[in-house]
């Protein structure tokens, strides 16, 4: 945005929220006369000063510097170019006018387009899961086998009226036995589909844990409070290393709290899921003891959510910092982080989801995610500016870490941590990409990715 518009915008906003030039100047730490020059477009404004001004005016940086409008315009252009909408004669040349005169309508249109894309992606992912679910494959096989046995025995009874009584009874028994088995299979299938309808996904224990975290926005206020109250137990001069101590305090003092959360959650239903969820929440509790949110959140903000700086500041492992960032309580001005941890085979070990980002839970994950190349340069934080086919933009931060020293000649084990945040939210962090940072096209899993010509494709898309 040009200097002309930026200065005017600052003045307009300042007046609309009713503060004087002198007051705003005081809040952002410059003289009133200098602010006056800025507002009259005689001086430029950028960097930290612009950020402080946006904050003082209670605007996001991108709202103030016009980036939000540019993105809105870009998205409207994309909508106008959609093949199925072309016939409607969308006046794409007037998108700028629409934003200027009816910004609310423009945003509503973009929001609708986005939720339509997300709904389509979810529907495709569900279809994908059904087609590849091992439970379904196995159950259908069992069902057909039972039907074969019933049918064969029943046909014998009809086709051979002359067989001996004992034989006849034997075939009757087979039919009865197999029918009973068949009803069990039928019930299991019905239960499976009921669950799919209720929860939008087939549940594995890992899925249940993910659903529990998702339903709580990755943040458990009761655990945070308890961890705060237990801080004295973390400081009493015990020489045990802090991480071990946090584990012990969590186990000894927070287990019943964790159990009650798991017992009350609607997302965790199976015994295996309960066990996993308890372990995950005790881990969360230990992390909360190590980096209590009351101090972690402001510190994270002050450090621009820099993962390495936070790890150093708290003497914590990166995975703990990633977990804490994903657990930040929601406020308008807090970036929202998703977190994924995968092993060397690319299987997901831990997942804290981020709305709008489909995690690669199944086969044919997109190899273009930086998550899968971080192992080539272990210990370094690698940033990726990722563009999805839907137009969604994310910033990915991945780092592979050695899980522990094993010894000479022994294999090393690596896990890769990846934080994800929307490109919008990244402007609140040190990871905000400059305009010059290359945008990389990535996708969701191949099966639900529309990039037909992609040379990395390993499976055909199932729809569209």
């Amino acid at each position, binding site marked *: 945005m040009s200097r002309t518009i930026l200065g005017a915008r600052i003045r307009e906003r300042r007046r609309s929220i009713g503060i004087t030039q002198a007051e705003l100047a005081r809040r952002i730490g410059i003289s009133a006369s200098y602010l006056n020059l800025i507002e009259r477009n005689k001086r430029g404004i950028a960097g930290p000063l612009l950020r402080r001004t946006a904050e003082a005016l209670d605007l996001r940086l991108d709202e103030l510097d016009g980036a939000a409008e540019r993105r809105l315009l870009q998205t409207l252009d994309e909508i106008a170019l959609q093949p199925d909408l072309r016939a409607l004669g969308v006046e794409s040349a007037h998108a700028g006018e629409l934003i200027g005169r009816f910004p609310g309508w423009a945003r509503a249109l973009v929001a609708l387009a986005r939720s339509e894309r997300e709904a389509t992606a979810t529907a495709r992912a569900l279809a994908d899961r059904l087609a590849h679910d091992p439970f379904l494959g196995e159950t*259908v*096989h069992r069902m*057909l*086998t039972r*039907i*074969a*046995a*019933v*049918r*064969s*025995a029943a*046909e*014998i009874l009809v*086709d*051979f009226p002359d067989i001996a009584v004992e*034989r006849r009874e*034997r*075939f009757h028994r*087979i039919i009865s*036995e*197999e029918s009973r088995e068949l009803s069990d299979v039928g019930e299991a299938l019905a239960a499976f589909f009921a669950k799919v309808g209720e929860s939008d996904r087939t549940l594995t224990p890992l899925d249940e844990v993910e659903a529990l975290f998702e339903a709580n926005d990755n943040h458990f206020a009761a655990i945070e409070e308890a961890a705060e109250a237990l801080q004295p137990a973390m400081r009493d001069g015990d020489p045990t290393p802090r991480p071990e101590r946090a584990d012990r305090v969590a186990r000894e003092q927070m287990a019943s709290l964790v159990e009650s959360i798991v017992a009350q959650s609607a997302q965790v239903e199976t015994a295996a899921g309960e066990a996993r969820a308890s372990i995950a929440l005790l881990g969360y509790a230990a992390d909360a003891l190590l980096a209590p949110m009351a101090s972690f959140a402001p510190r994270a903000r002050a450090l621009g959510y820099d993962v390495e700086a936070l790890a150093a500041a708290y003497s914590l492992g990166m995975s703990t910092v990633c977990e804490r960032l994903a657990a930040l309580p929601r406020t308008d001005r807090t970036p929202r982080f998703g977190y994924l941890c995968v092993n060397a085979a690319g299987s997901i070990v831990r997942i804290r989801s981020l709305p709008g980002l489909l995690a690669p839970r199944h086969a044919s994950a997109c190899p273009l995610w930086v998550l899968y190349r971080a192992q080539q340069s272990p210990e370094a934080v690698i940033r990726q500016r990722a563009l999805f086919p839907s137009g969604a933009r994310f910033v990915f931060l991945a780092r592979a870490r050695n899980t522990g020293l094993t010894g000479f000649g022994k294999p090393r084990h690596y896990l890769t941590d990846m934080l994800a945040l929307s490109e919008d939210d990244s402007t609140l962090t040190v990871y905000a990409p400059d305009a010059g940072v290359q945008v990389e096209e990535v996708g969701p899993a191949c099966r639900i990715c529309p990039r037909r010509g992609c040379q990395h494709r390993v499976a055909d898309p199932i729809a569209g």
Partner: protein
Amino acid sequence: MTKRVLLAEDEPNIVESLTFLLERAGFVVESEMSGRAALEAAIAEPPDVMILDVMLPELDGLEILRRMRADPRSADTPVLMLTAKGQREDRETALGSGADMFITKPFSNAEVIAAVERLAGGRQR
């Protein structure tokens, strides 16, 4: 001479029904419930017709078929494959690895008997 059918199937109730039917049709029937035992029996004393289920414990039907075809003693044994999966890939894999015929579960008795009779070179009585 009475012809021998080797039935490799791990569902006892299906084994019982098919054995009854094949005996009624004039065949001598031997059955094996594990893949490994079925393969050994097929090679040691090749039957006139083999009915082979795709899903077997220890060694699956497709692998048994490949090994049978690789062994001169059982390379020409007529094989009828049974599977619960009606998927095309399975059918193609089975026929590609040398099955003579292919029937999906749930089958009709008449269909199985007709197939075995054809592979055995005619009705037994």
